[in-house]
């Protein structure tokens, strides 16, 4: 475990409580602590924990910010805040179900469209790599991220922050933390962020990646009786964002004529109640989450009137996790739990065809097939409408037993997971066209044709799976670390690719015009679960005498039916989720944290992943042996932190921070014909002050390295998104 990037106890003033101490206080309840059988240090897990101060130093306020800092953990920044495509050890997801779970203050986020949001006053971020499916269940096949925000039981007072950066980026936050007595505390936090953006749409000269966001959080903690703890965190956020700065590879420019935006409202509440007795503890973690968003795109991303897409979504989810744990000391330890969830999704997703789209994608195909009887659409704009309702519910039970024999700890865990999902769809269209007859070189009106589509359907899927985990850990003594081996099964739920409905409906339209292949909705829209077997060996080595911690891990992942996103060639409007035959991934990670002196810290991490197809033939090409797209082969992070006293009491210290993040190579497609070479980004910061008042001047990508974070093809056109260039800014913090 990489402990405390930036957590340097010796740099604290002795009489002050730093709000960034790693780990959680016993009075607090969080899902991570509840499901751990031992200190995270001693668990057979490849885990990285980042403290609050480490995150502040790196300027991280959201999950995307820790990309590359954690080895083999990559979250490309592209599109909008709706896109949170996390890749860990070659396993990831760009659409629909996530591969990495996210818990924020006990709320398990079930929809990754809501993963990307700024979180003020993070106390810690814990990233567990490798399948966590046995204890955390669905969609944690590549790992789980646990975010804990600051507790009023840990810190009292005010925390104010104001930041200004490139692209007219402004962030302000204010948090009030109050402890009523030794048993109860309350925190109220609010934040606002805005930016004008750095990417320009050449079509209209406006910035495309502008953003406004508001968020708030209320955290309440109450130890209402001896042995009992109650914690409730409610959070809400609203986002208005442009987004989607995709440049056309042919011109290198971002230029599209129709609007693109993403708006989102989220509300979450997590209630955790825990009873800790002499021989056992019981914890109940209940959450509710609601997301209401609207994504509207110029789907062709060109300055032409092809088509636009709108996707409006309203989803509400309820979860309940009950964990019973036996005595935490002793040679035998156990925990058991039940998890249940229900989520309900309503979505409207119309695709609007415009003049050029009607001409090139519809009329042209029809008229090439029957040139003697060409057609002309009655209007130059019409919509293919799709409405979905997707209720999903699941129930699972799990157990883990740990047995310590001398220096060895043997662990076995099992989870039985059942899930059912139903897709109710309604596709509709009301349009028409005129047919002409070519006679003696002249077009004469033949007749009108009406197109009414009103297709309703229901598809149901259920999934039952068993998820085991076995591990053996050898302890190297107190503060010596450990060596472990682990075998575990990972699982990502199947589901429905609703974005494919636009293709299904378009083909339906073409079939009604006499040309086209009708798609089987069930076969096109449904996709199967993804399963993997993960084999890992690792070690946590501590050298306290020299202040060094070393974490090592090597892994091999055998993945079946991997869910991959493909953009079909040609003129379709949506993306396909397919289950690739079989893939494998192997690699390793190393993290070193060294306190070289009481004022000099060195952190570095490196991750290598070799992820390839063992078997994948999409009917057109065979991709056996090719690298998996979007998963980087290398991640690299190195950071040096040097603190120098100013000699002036009220000024505190001057801290210099230099860091380098590296990523790549990344292949953009299954055929590996397009890729991004390895690139490195230099960051630096100077912080003046102390824990009470500090001013940080920072810079990111100081060498203005050019790189891309995303690539795709649509209608035969290639698009890329550039990574952010040089950014400079200043952050002022005042805690009192």
């Amino acid at each position, binding site marked *: 475990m990489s402990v405390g990037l930036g957590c340097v106890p010796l740099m604290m003033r002795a009489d002050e409580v730093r709000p960034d101490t790693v780990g959680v206080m016993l009075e607090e309840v969080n899902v991570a602590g509840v499901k751990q059988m031992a200190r995270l240090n001693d668990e057979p897990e490849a885990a990285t924990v980042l403290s609050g101060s480490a995150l502040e130093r790196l300027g991280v306020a959201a999950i995307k910010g820790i990309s590359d800092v954690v080895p083999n953990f990559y979250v490309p920044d592209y599109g909008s805040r709706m896109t949170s495509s996390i890749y860990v050890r070659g396993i990831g997801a760009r659409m629909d179900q996530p591969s990495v779970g996210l818990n924020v203050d006990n709320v398990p986020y079930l929809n990754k469209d809501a993963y990307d949001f700024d979180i003020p006053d993070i106390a810690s971020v814990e990233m567990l790599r490798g399948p966590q499916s046995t204890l955390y269940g669905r969609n944690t096949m590549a790992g789980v991220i646990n975010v804990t925000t600051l507790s009023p039981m840990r810190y009292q007072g005010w925390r104010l922050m104001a930041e200004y950066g490139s692209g007219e980026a402004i962030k302000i936050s204010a948090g009030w933390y109050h402890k009523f007595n030794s048993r109860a505390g309350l925190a109220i936090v609010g934040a606002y962020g805005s930016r004008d953006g750095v990417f320009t749409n050449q079509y209209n000269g406006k910035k495309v990646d502008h953003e406004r966001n508001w968020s708030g959080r209320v955290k309440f903690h109450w130890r209402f009786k001896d042995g009992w703890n109650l914690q409730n965190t409610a959070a809400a956020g609203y986002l208005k964002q442009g987004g989607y700065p995709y440049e056309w590879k042919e011109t290198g420019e971002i230029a599209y004529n129709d609007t693109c935006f993403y708006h989102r409202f989220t509300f979450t509440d997590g209630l955790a109640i825990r009873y800790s007795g002499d021989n056992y503890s019981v914890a109940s973690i209940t959450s509710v989450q609601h997301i209401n968003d609207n994504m509207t795109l110029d789907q062709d991303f060109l300055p032409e009137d092809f088509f636009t897409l709108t996707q409006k979504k309203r989803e509400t989810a309820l979860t309940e996790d009950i964990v019973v744990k036996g005595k935490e000391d002793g040679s035998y330890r156990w925990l058991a739990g039940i998890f249940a969830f229900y989520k309900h999704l309503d979505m409207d997703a119309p695709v609007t065809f415009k003049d050029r789209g009607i001409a090139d994608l519809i009329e042209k195909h029809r008229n090439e097939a029957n040139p003697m009887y060409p057609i002309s659409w009655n209007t130059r704009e019409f919509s293919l409408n799709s409405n979905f309702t997707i209720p999903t519910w699941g129930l699972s039970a799990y157990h883990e037993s740990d047995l310590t024999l001398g220096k060895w700890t043997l662990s076995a865990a099992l989870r039985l997971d059942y899930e059912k999902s139903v897709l109710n769809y309604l596709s*509709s269209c009301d349009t028409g066209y005129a047919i002409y007859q070519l006679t003696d070189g002249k077009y004469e009106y033949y007749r009108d044709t009406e197109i009414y589509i009103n297709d309703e359907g229901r598809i149901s899927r259920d999934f039952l799976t068993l998820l085991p985990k076995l591990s053996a850990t050898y302890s190297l003594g107190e503060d010596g670390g450990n060596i472990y081996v682990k075998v575990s099964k990972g699982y990502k739920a199947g589901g429905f690719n609703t974005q494919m409905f636009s293709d299904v409906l378009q083909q339906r339209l073409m*079939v*009604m015009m006499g040309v*086209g292949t009708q798609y089987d909705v069930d076969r096109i829209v449904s996709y199967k679960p993804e399963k993997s077997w993960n084999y890992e060996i690792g070690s946590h080595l501590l050298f306290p005498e020299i202040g060094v911690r070393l974490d090592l891990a090597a892994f091999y992942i055998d993945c079946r039916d991997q869910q991959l996103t493909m953009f079909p060639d040609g003129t379709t409007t949506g993306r396909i989720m397919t289950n690739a035959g079989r893939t494998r991934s192997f690699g390793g990670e190393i993290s070193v944290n060294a306190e070289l002196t009481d004022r000099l810290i060195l952190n570095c991490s490196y991750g290598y992943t070799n992820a390839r197809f063992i078997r994948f033939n999409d009917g057109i090409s065979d991709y056996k042996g090719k690298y998996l797209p979007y998963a980087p082969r290398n991640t690299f992070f190195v950071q040096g932190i040097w603190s120098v006293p100013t000699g002036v009491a009220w000024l505190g210290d001057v801290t210099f921070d230099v860091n380098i993040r590296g990523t790549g190579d990344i292949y953009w497609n299954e055929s590996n014909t397009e890729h991004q070479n390895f690139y490195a980004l230099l960051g630096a910061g100077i912080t003046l002050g102390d824990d009470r008042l500090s001013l940080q001047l920072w810079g990111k990508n100081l060498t203005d390295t050019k790189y891309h974070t995303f690539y795709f093809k649509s209608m035969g056109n290639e698009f890329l998104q550039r990574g952010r260039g040089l950014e400079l800014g200043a952050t002022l913090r005042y805690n009192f």
Partner: protein
Amino acid sequence: MKKKLIYALAGCSLLLTACNTGNGENEQTMTYPTCNFVIPKDGTTPTMSYGSYTFKSKMSASLWDMSVSTTSLSINNTARTFVTQTYPVVNVGGYKQIIKNVSSDPASGGYEISNGTFMLSAYDNLPKDFLPNKVFTPTQKDEKGKISYIPGTVFYPNMTGYISPLVVAQYDFGSEYKVKTFFCDAFYAGKTNTSYSLPNGMSGMAESEKMVYRVIMDLDKKKAGIVIYNAKFSDSDKEPEKAAIYIPGLDITFQGESYEISGKDIIPLIPEGNLPALPDPDKFTPYPTFKFNEFKMVMTNSWLTSTRMEFSVADTYKGYFSGSYVKIPENM
């Protein structure tokens, strides 16, 4: 879709009565439409006509017995009747029921038949994902603009309502005629082999089991039309797949104890958009690009269920289809 076409023999029918006799027996009486091919044994011209057969089934001690009768067998423009005796039903897996060595007793009423074999069957040969009704079920729009499908209507002429189970039968009618049943609106599935040669020099061969042929016969006019579903005559990307292409105005001719359907230089039609409530080929669009230079269909078994079709299209594509609309069991 397939479930609509595969009829539980205890299910959809034009006339269905069922009762429990109270003695632990079940009786069912079902009447199914079909067509009759009447072949004079003296070699004169056969005739085709519409008709129906009534099947009376009785189950006792878990065994089915069945008898057959008809009141609409047209011979020399006169409706003939017969009632057979009761025979044990042979179940041949799936939705097939057969009675063999069937004869009637004129003393019971009607005419004499002999050497009869009758089979009731569902469509069992269609591709798994065959979905014509999804596309071509007629729709209507009410005054509020709400769109709904008209249930029970099927794409093209002569057939309304659900397609009933198939009657496959042969028998001797008296000493003068041999009668074979056939289905005048049948979906044939099997394998189509095509070869093509394009003006730009591209050529190739392709094989498909997706193409389904619906043969619709107008017995009064002795004309037939054939709908080819999922029609694609090559594996070239240049040729679009046609959900349905209709070849009208083919001639029905008799060949011995069988018949043929053929035509030349026919411009096919494609349906476009939503169909009106009543099917009307005049609302289809001519498709000159795919003119059928020649088309010929011959029946390849004595039960008139299997066929071979040969066609050439646009002077570019040649196709050969071999298939059936229902499988005949080996012990039939």
